[in-house]
């Protein structure tokens, strides 16, 4: 399974990068989202994956008796998901504003418009 997940991470990175290289601003943001998901998956995978053992201490004990999933990557990813939401929502609204002003979501046209102003 790890092998397939590693390949999957690669696919996410490739798709994200490809979208980021497009001229459309919307595609750029979608690319950003995809690559963000890829990064999350990469961290998750590199922290080693464990099945059916969430890092929650069982009800009446003070320590883990059995194996447990690594909590540190999970904490990192949780933070990353939330932060990327902040970034994405801001970017989406920015695209909306930019589209209203310049009537295009083509990055190249935006460049020239900026120079003309």
């Amino acid at each position: 399974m790890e092998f397939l997940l590693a390949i999957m991470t690669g696919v996410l990175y490739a798709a994200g990068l490809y979208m980021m290289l497009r001229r459309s601003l919307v595609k750029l943001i979608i690319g950003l989202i995809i690559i963000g998901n890829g990064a999350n998956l990469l961290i998750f995978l590199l922290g080693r994956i464990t099945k059916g053992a969430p890092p929650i201490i069982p009800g009446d004990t003070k320590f883990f008796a059995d194996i447990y999933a690594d909590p540190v990557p999970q904490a990192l990813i949780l933070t990353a998901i939330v932060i990327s939401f902040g970034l994405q929502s801001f970017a989406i609204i920015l695209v909306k504003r930019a589209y209203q002003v310049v009537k295009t979501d083509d990055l190249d046209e935006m460049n020239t418009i900026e120079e003309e102003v």
Partner: protein
Amino acid sequence: MLLAILIGFFAALSQLLFGKFMKGKLSILLSLVPLAFFIFFVQYIPAIAAGEIVTAKHTWVSSFGVDLDLRLDGLALLFSLMITGIGTLVFIYTSAYLKNHPMLDRFYGYLFIFMAAMLGLVLSDNFLAMFIFWELTSISSFFLIGFNNTNPDSRKSALTALSITGIGGLLFLAGGLLLGEVTGTYQISQMISQNELLVNHSLYVLTVALIFGAAFTKSAQFPFHFWLPGAMKAPTPVSTYLHSATMVKAGIYLLFRLSPVLGNSDFWNNTLLIVGGITMLYAAFHTLFRTDLKGILAYSTIAALGILTFLIGLGTKESFIAAAVFILVHALYKATLFLMTGAIDLYTGTRDVTKLSGLHKVMLPIAIAGGLAAISNAGIPPSIGFIGKDLIYESTLHFRHNATLLTTLAILTNILIGYAGYVAGVKPFIGRTPTGLEKVTFPHPAIWIPPVILGVLGFVFGLFPSLVEASLIKPIVATTGVDTSDIHIKLWHGFNTVLGLSAITIISGIALYFIWKPNATKRYFIQRFDKLSPKFIIETLADWFESFSDLWTRIFQNGYLRNYITVIVVFLISLVAFTLLNNTTYQIDYSSFSKLTIYEVVSLCIMILAIGFAVFTKSRLAAVAATGVMGYSICLFFVFYSAPDLAMTQFAIDTLTVILFVLVLYKLPRYLNLSDYKTRVKDGIIAIAFGGLVSILALEVLAQPQNNEISSYYAENAYVLAHGKNVVNVILVDFRGIDTMVEISVLAIAAIGVFGLLKLRLKSEERKQQ
């Protein structure tokens, strides 16, 4: 002494605040500051003459070896007296020369900065502190050259001067650091004892080359001399003060100061001899073809600096005496000539020597000053110039080898310099007064008194050389570490070879003056060779450099996001791939991987489909929906692999993003097909390479052993220390609570941004409605 430097800087600052009140008649009062410094330094003459050295140590940044170690010895004293003495006269002169100039306060401010920096430069014993002052003199010089900032020529000259002396400053720093590395100290006075170590060190040639670079750029030696004629765009007081008497001698000062440290080697002496020799002949020859008074003086200044470099290059006791005397001689007569030129320019409106004559009728004191300076310049007795020239000939005649050649060079240069002196100091005043110049007003006392004082001083010192012998010259030569008890400077040496050579020089100079008349044709003749001059070559190089950086910037900073990403990613891929190909053995241990179940395979397939759809669909909404599906499948993986918190967060956030996206974007048109097939294939290849790299790296990392120290710490202490059972939550809100708080603030800022953007839209719509 530190106080003197600081007062200088404070005086500059005060110009900023009180300059407005000092612009008028009060401006002459500012000369009291340098005058006070002058008197302050004069007090030290008896002590220095007795062989003492006054020091003052002020710690600054000791950990870096930068301290304000001030050290007043003979050499520093001569320069301090020139800086403050000539400074006083220049300050007085300026009050009349730039009378009612709207920027007079600024001008005085720059002059104060320069004076303080120059004092700091000659008084510093610490190399790094000296570097700071060295740079400050370059910067103040830049502002003073570009003082007429509405004139493009002035601005260009200022920039040229700054870039040349600025490069020199960097070389100075590099050389100083090397010196510090080799000797283990930045104090020049302590380096002297390590002369042998330095000369035999493997870094010696590099160190000396760097120091030479600094000195030659500052003191306008060939081939860096060209900034100095350009610097004549500055108002005349500046040319007098910075570009003949003091600042340009900073390089000479440095060479003189470091002679006992770095000298005593063939490389040091021969380079200085050659560079100094070329500079003095080249520049002296150029004076023949100039018609602008300041241009003539600029080239004769370069020639004089060449002589000084040449003398330091000889490196004998006699040559050091000659250099010490000549520094003083040159400062006195050249400052006089410049002040005189300024007076002529101010009252007649021209500096063209071909148009000037007979001015003695209208400005007699200036004519006297010019004449005195020309005599001292030509080395005619009984001026101090005569002594200076004699000493030069003595040192060349008694040199170990090539004495005849060196003496001939010195004689030729002196003849030409003498000629330049006559043209500048005598020609404008004699002969018939041309019409138009008869009604010239008599100069203001502040204009004619300073040059007369300097001109007369040249004769006083000439007639009574004992005035400077014990007080200045002996202590200066003593800084090179030789015995000075047998030095006797005299006007009359009796009939000998040197006297004969002197006579030849004087007579040839006068003869040349009568034979060779400067005119515009000759100036044009020499200008034809400008294409071969170092100035042209260095400017061309600078232009090339500029176009190169322009090209470079256009390639890499072209404003297209995708190009930046491409460059960064391709570079990254090649770098990592190179390492991977060379150093890695691929070992994937399949046995350690967990087994596949049908749920996972299905989720993977959904995910691949969603990604494919998101990338290749023609509809924005479909792409957004596909992104959502992709997010949900990742969510499923989090569920499978024991991360319930992540699954919940991912699910919520993904839903929110898709809703937001749809709400904002559903009005936008369909995608346009913006890129051609070729670009897409190219981008595709880059993307796949990048993805492949990430996969390989992930597998490689998985093959490495894992360190669980941090995780087990959190797991063991989650309940014991923080009383929480969900370890992920405990990490976020307890162990790393402050991080989470900062994260929340980031979200808040993003929210404010979103809100602001939405509000902005409302306003602009309102504007449209009106």
